[in-house]
């Protein structure tokens, strides 16, 4: 094992250099991060109650369905004026799994054959497959709360980092 440290070090250094530029300059393109351009209305109306879930994790039809039922939004009233709802719907569908061009989004869409109209990210085929080793009881732990709390395990979720090697599941 001793002989291979140098190439690894070089590789790590290269990756360190490469990552920020990928994230910074190429938008959602080829990045390993799940990036979405910021949207003020989405941040204010949606992300004041929960994480700004990446639009790329649902199909456009799912976002449309969700935005059509905001007065009963997973048990809460998340209603907003029609103009704002329209703007946010456009933003979400534009960057949805089946509309965006990023590699992360494409992966979600590739498995999304049966995800049309699914409004829970945790019920998409991609999500279910990626989390199949996590028992439902894990999400109920006090430090997690529910499957909606991405950041409990994916600390970098808010900036689009869902790398499984960085996952740390609270006890």
């Amino acid at each position: 094992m001793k002989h291979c440290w140098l190439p690894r070090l070089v590789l790590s250094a290269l990756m360190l250099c490469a990552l920020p530029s990928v994230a910074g300059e190429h938008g959602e393109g080829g990045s390993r991060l799940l990036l979405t351009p910021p949207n003020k209305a989405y941040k204010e109306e949606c992300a004041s109650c929960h994480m700004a879930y990446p639009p790329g994790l649902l199909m456009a039809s799912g976002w449309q369905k969700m935005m059509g039922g905001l007065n009963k939004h997973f048990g809460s009233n998340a209603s907003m004026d029609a103009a704002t709802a329209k703007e946010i719907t456009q933003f979400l569908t534009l960057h949805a799994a089946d509309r965006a061009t990023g590699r992360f989004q494409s992966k979600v869409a590739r498995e999304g054959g049966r995800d049309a109209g699914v409004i829970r990210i945790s019920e998409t085929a991609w999500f279910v497959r990626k989390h199949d080793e996590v028992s439902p009881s894990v999400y109920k732990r006090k430090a997690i709360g529910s499957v909606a709390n991405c950041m409990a395990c994916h600390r970098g979720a808010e900036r689009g980092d869902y790398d499984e090697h960085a996952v740390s599941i609270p006890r």
Partner: protein
Amino acid sequence: MRYAHTLFALCVGLLGLPTHAETPAEMAATYAQAAGGKASAEAGKALYFREVQKNGKAISCATCHTKDPKAMGMTLAFREINPLAPIANPRRLTDPKKVDKWFRRNCDDVFSRECTPQEKADYLAWLLSVR
């Protein structure tokens, strides 16, 4: 684009839509007026702590905003909430649209109905009285 925004802001301003900031006291006065001129901080406090059963759990405003409106709260979906009391959060109760929006959303969330003008006036009176 920049000019379009400025123009839009100007038009909105001329139309007199409530985009301007108010003081929390002005906000409370407006709501009290809508309730016939009376507002009770005591009734507002009672409303804040009133528990109702929802999905087998007792919930109230304090469920998310905590029992101290000067403290940070937490939404059921894991977001921090800045303090409700203006004394702890100077930006609170300064934007009429926001106040209206959160009454609309949260009265429905907790009480499964709209709050009455009197309840809203009482609630703001209480938040202002918190020291």
